[in-house]
């Protein structure tokens, strides 16, 4: 099984160039606006901190102005709600109190659901773009692992990462919006006057979702790291055995084949470094802006909840707090996805045969 890649390696080794390996594995398909042509070709070093700073600098100004305007509107709505609350206390019979409470909760819910829908759509699109890009990177990384002599590690990591990408796609298409709708409905029902206390149900939904996500990401992370490490060790052993056997049993060219394989494995590790760097930069470019947006929205929602409670709108404040907690799950999903992708890329860069 290892002989065919080894022969291919040797041919590449004789023709000698990293460019030909890069072209053969299809690194051109990894082009993205976040990386320049020189960086993709490995002619220029990818400085990840600089990339992170650039991405944050590009995302931050628009994000803050847009969020400030949107949450300014929400604060205006809260001010009106507090006026209505003041009025409902004037009524001695208290007949209008429930109607006022209902209208204020409905108005706040309407505003927040619009914001959340846009935010979840944005995060969903980002996750879809991420899975699409990583699905394009997967064949390249697998080919490079095979070219580097890590056939078993290639199959194991590609299966594990495909599973992860499928899980993320399924979460995007079938879980994200139902989760938002259920959390929102429960939060809304809990905030309405004269209803049963739904707050524990909402809390249970959020905690369970967070727990399931944490379990899924831990399992995938563990599986990817451990299985790749174990199979890479067996690949190393096999590679050395084949090299030794070719050196001993193939007369004259046996040693030359082994040396060529070693040279190509070195070239492949350079390309792997470039591909891993590109993958990391693009992962940040795709997932960091939605993560920042969710974090800013979470912060501003907490601020609005505090303002609502200060203005005497207890129910609205509670609704905003509950809905803000929903964003924790979205933040966890984005952060977990990013962490697993980085783990995969780091393992991919690090995996190589000991020559």
């Amino acid at each position, binding site marked *: 099984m290892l002989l065919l890649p080894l022969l291919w390696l040797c041919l590449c080794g004789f023709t000698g160039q990293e460019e030909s390996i890069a072209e053969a594995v299809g690194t051109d398909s990894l082009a993205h606006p976040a990386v320049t042509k020189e960086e993709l070709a490995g002619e220029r070093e990818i400085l990840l901190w600089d990339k992170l700073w650039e991405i944050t600098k590009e995302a931050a100004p628009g994000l803050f102005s847009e969020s400030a305007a949107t949450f300014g509107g929400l604060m205006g709505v809260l001010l009106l709600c507090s006026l*209505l609350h003041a*009025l409902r206390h004037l009524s001695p019979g208290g*007949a209008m109190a429930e109607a006022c409470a209902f209208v204020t909760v409905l108005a706040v819910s309407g505003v927040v659901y*619009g914001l959340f829908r846009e935010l979840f759509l944005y995060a969903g699109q980002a996750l879809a773009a991420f899975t699409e890009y990583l699905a394009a990177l997967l064949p390249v990384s697998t080919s490079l692992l095979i070219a580097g002599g890590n056939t078993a590690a290639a199959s194991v990591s590609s299966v594990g990462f495909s599973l992860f990408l499928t899980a993320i796609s399924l979460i995007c298409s079938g879980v994200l919006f139902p989760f938002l709708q259920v959390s929102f409905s429960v939060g809304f029902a809990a905030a309405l006057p004269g209803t049963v206390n739904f707050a524990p149900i909402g809390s249970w939904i959020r905690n369970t979702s967070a727990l399931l996500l944490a379990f899924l990401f831990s399992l995938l992370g563990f599986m990817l790291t451990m299985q790749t490490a174990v199979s890479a060790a067996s690949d190393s052993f096999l590679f050395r055995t084949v090299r030794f056997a070719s050196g001993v049993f193939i007369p004259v060219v046996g040693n030359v084949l082994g040396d060529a394989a070693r040279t190509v494995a070195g070239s492949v590790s350079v390309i792997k470094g470039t591909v891993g760097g590109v993958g990391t930069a693009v992962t940040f470019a795709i997932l960091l802006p939605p993560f920042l947006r969710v974090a800013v929205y979470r912060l501003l929602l907490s601020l609005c909840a505090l303002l609502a409670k200060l203005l005497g709108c207890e129910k609205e404040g509670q609704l905003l707090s509950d809905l803000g907690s929903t964003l924790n799950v979205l933040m966890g999903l984005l952060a977990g996805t990013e962490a697993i992708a980085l783990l995969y890329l780091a393992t991919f860069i690090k995996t190589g045969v000991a020559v």
Partner: protein
Amino acid sequence: MLFALCVNLLLHRVSPEFTPLTAAAGGVLLGVYLLRGLLDALLPLAQAAQGLGLSAHMELLLKALAIALVCNSTSALCRDCGESALADKAELAGKVAILSLCIPLLVQLLELF
């Protein structure tokens, strides 16, 4: 309001049947004055909300606020006149009016789901 109170107290001795009318007049005048001040304060807020796509929510709250103000003053006047049944009806009318205002937004919210 203090002026209305003084007039009311004076009128109470001379002809008590007019006191509810003076109280109503005082209430309406104060209400109009309050609403003018409130409108001046809330108009920029409503305009800003229109730009942010929140005009429906602001409109709902402003209408509810106006209805609640009118119904509160009406029911208070009715109570002052000793008509507590009418006061309750005024409050009920306000409640129904406010809840019926919510229906379009509720439908809109349900459609988003």
